[in-house]
C-alpha cells in the first residue's frame, strides 16, 4: 500500500533509492546531503533495503565505487553536494564515457569561498558538460519520483548514461512536506531489474575503458551525442508511463504553467518555480498575460520544446539561480542558444538567489513585472543581478 509521509527532500531521495532497489550505495557525507545517506544506512542496517553500502573516503571514491558497481551489472546510487560534487568531477565524465547508468542526487548548494551551505545551482551547472542527465526538482515528491524515473530512462539501451536528480539545499532537502511513498510492487512493475548487455563477469571476461586511438575516439563520442539526441523523446516516453502507473506527472522536460498564448514567459528551475506559481496567479489576476515555464530537465536541454513554447511570445524572462563565472547565467545562455535563428524575442537574464538569498513572492513579483515592462520599453540590459545590497530597495518594494 502506498503511504503518505511528511518527509524532507533528503528522505524522499533515500526512499527513491530504496524503491528503485539500488544494489550498491557508495557515498561520503556533506551538508546538506548527509541525511540522504544516513537514512539509507539506517534502512540497510534494519534490513529494509537490500543494498551493499560502501563507506568511502571521498566523493571521488564514491563515484569510482559506483562506476565499478554499475560496470559489474549492479544498480548504483550516490549523493553529494557542492564541493563534494566538484570533487567527483573527473568521474562524472568517466561514468558518461563508460555509458553507465549511475543515478545520483545532488543537493544544490553554493560553492565557496565565501563558504556557504545554502541553495544555489552553481554546483550542478558547473557539471553540465560531464554528460550527465540533469533533472531539477521543485518538490520533495518530485525528488522521489525522479530517482525512480532516472533509472528507467538511463538504463534504456538507447540511453545508457548517468543522471543527477537535483534539489535545492534546505528549501527541499530539509523541509518536510507530504510525499506519497509508493508501494514497492508498483515500482517493481514500472522499473525492472538492471540487466546490461556487457558487464564485468569472471565467466565472460571483457575489458572496459581502454585506449581509444584518434581514429576511433570520435566515433565513440558520436554515439553519446546520438543518445543525447534520443533522450528528450525517451524522457517524455518514460514520463507518460510514470503518469499511467503512479497517477502523477513527474514534470517531463518543461512544466508549462499557464503558458497558453502568453506574451511574457518566465523561466525558472528548482524550488523558486513553486513560489513563482503563486506570483503568476496574482499577476494574471491583475491582468498581465504572463506564464511560467519550469525547466525541469536541463540536460538534455529541451531545445525543440523551447522553440515551440516561445511561439508568439514577446519577452522571455529567465531566472538563473547560478553564476558560473561567465556572461550571465546558464539557463539564459542555453535558451538563447536554442532560440537563435528560430525566435526573435526580448530575452533578459535575471541572476537571483545566489548563496541561499531568500526569494520572497515580493521579489519574484518585481522580477516578473520588470520582464513584463520590457514589452513597452525594450531590453534595458541583458543581465540583471536581483536583490544585491546596492539595489535591494528596488526589488523589495
Amino acid at each position, binding site marked *: 500500500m502506498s503511504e503518505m509521509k511528511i518527509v524532507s527532500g533528503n528522505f524522499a531521495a533515500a526512499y527513491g533509492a530504496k524503491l528503485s532497489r539500488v544494489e550498491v550505495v557508495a557515498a561520503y557525507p556533506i551538508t546538506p546531503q548527509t541525511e540522504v545517506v544516513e537514512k539509507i544506512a539506517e534502512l540497510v542496517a534494519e534490513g529494509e533495503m537490500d543494498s551493499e553500502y560502501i563507506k568511502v573516503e571521498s566523493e571521488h571514491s564514491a563515484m569510482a565505487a559506483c562506476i565499478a558497481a554499475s560496470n559489474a551489472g549492479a544498480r548504483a546510487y550516490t549523493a553529494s553536494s557542492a564541493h563534494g560534487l566538484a570533487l567527483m568531477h573527473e568521474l562524472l565524465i568517466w561514468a558518461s*564515457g563508460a555509458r*553507465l547508468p549511475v543515478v545520483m542526487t545532488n543537493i544544490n548548494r553554493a560553492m565557496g569561498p565565501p563558504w556557504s551551505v545554502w541553495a544555489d545551482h552553481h554546483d550542478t551547472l558547473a557539471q553540465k558538460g560531464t554528460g550527465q542527465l540533469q533533472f531539477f526538482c521543485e518538490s520533495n515528491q518530485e525528488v522521489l519520483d525522479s530517482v525512480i524515473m532516472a533509472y528507467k530512462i538511463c538504463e534504456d539501451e538507447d540511453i545508457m548514461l548517468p543522471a543527477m536528480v537535483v534539489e535545492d539545499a534546505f528549501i527541499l532537502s530539509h523541509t518536510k512536506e507530504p510525499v506519497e511513498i509508493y508501494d514497492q510492487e508498483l515500482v517493481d512493475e514500472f522499473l525492472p531489474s538492471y540487466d546490461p548487455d556487457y558487464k564485468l563477469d569472471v565467466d*565472460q571476461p571483457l575489458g572496459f575503458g581502454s585506449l581509444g586511438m584518434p581514429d576511433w575516439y570520435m566515433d*565513440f563520442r558520436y*554515439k553519446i551525442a546520438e543518445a543525447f539526441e534520443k533522450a528528450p523523446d525517451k524522457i517524455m516516453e518514460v514520463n507518460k508511463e510514470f503518469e499511467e502507473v503512479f497517477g502523477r506527472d513527474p514534470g517531463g522536460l518543461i512544466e508549462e504553467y499557464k503558458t497558453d498564448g502568453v506574451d511574457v514567459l518566465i523561466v525558472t528551475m528548482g524550488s523558486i518555480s513553486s513560489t513563482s506559481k503563486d506570483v503568476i496567479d496574482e499577476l494574471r489576476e491583475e491582468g498581465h498575460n504572463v506564464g511560467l515555464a519550469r525547466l525541469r530537465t536541463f540536460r538534455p536541454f529541451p531545445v525543440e520544446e523551447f522553440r515551440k513554447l516561445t511561439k508568439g511570445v514577446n519577452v522571455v524572462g529567465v531566472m538563473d539561480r547560478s553564476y558560473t563565472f561567465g556572461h550571465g547565467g546558464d539557463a539564459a545562455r542555453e535558451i538563447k542558444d536554442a532560440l537563435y535563428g528560430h525566435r526573435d524575442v526580448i530575452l533578459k537574464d535575471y541572476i537571483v538567489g545566489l548563496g541561499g538569498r531568500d526569494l520572497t513572492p515580493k521579489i519574484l513579483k518585481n522580477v516578473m513585472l520588470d520582464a513584463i515592462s520590457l514589452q513597452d520599453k525594450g531590453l534595458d540590459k541583458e543581465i540583471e543581478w536581483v536583490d544585491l545590497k546596492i539595489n535591494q530597495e528596488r526589488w523589495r518594494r
Partner: protein
Amino acid sequence: MKTLSEEEVFRIVIDPKDHRDLPRAVITDCPSHLMTKTGSWRTLRPIVDLEECIKCGICWKFCPDVSIEVKEEGAVVDYDYCKGCGICAKECPVDAIDMKKEADYV
C-alpha cells in the same frame, strides 16, 4: 596457464566499419592479449637450463607478465608473451636462467 584459441575468445565486434558497429563504450574482447603477442617486443630471451632448475617457483613469482611456469620438467617460458625483461634470470637462486640475444633464436 590456459591460452584460448581464436574461436574460444568472446568477440564483441569484428572489423567495425563505423560507429554503428561499435558497442556503447570501449568494451573490448577478452582476453585482449590474444591479439597482441608481446613476445615480439623481446630483444633478449631467457633460456632455462632444466638440469639446473630446482622447480622452486621463484621465477614464476617474480615474472611481471605471467610468462614462465613451473611444469613437470622444470621452468618453462611462454615465448609468445615473454618480453625479455630478465627478472627471472636475476632472481633465480641457482642461476639456471641465462638471457641470450633474441636475434640468435629467430
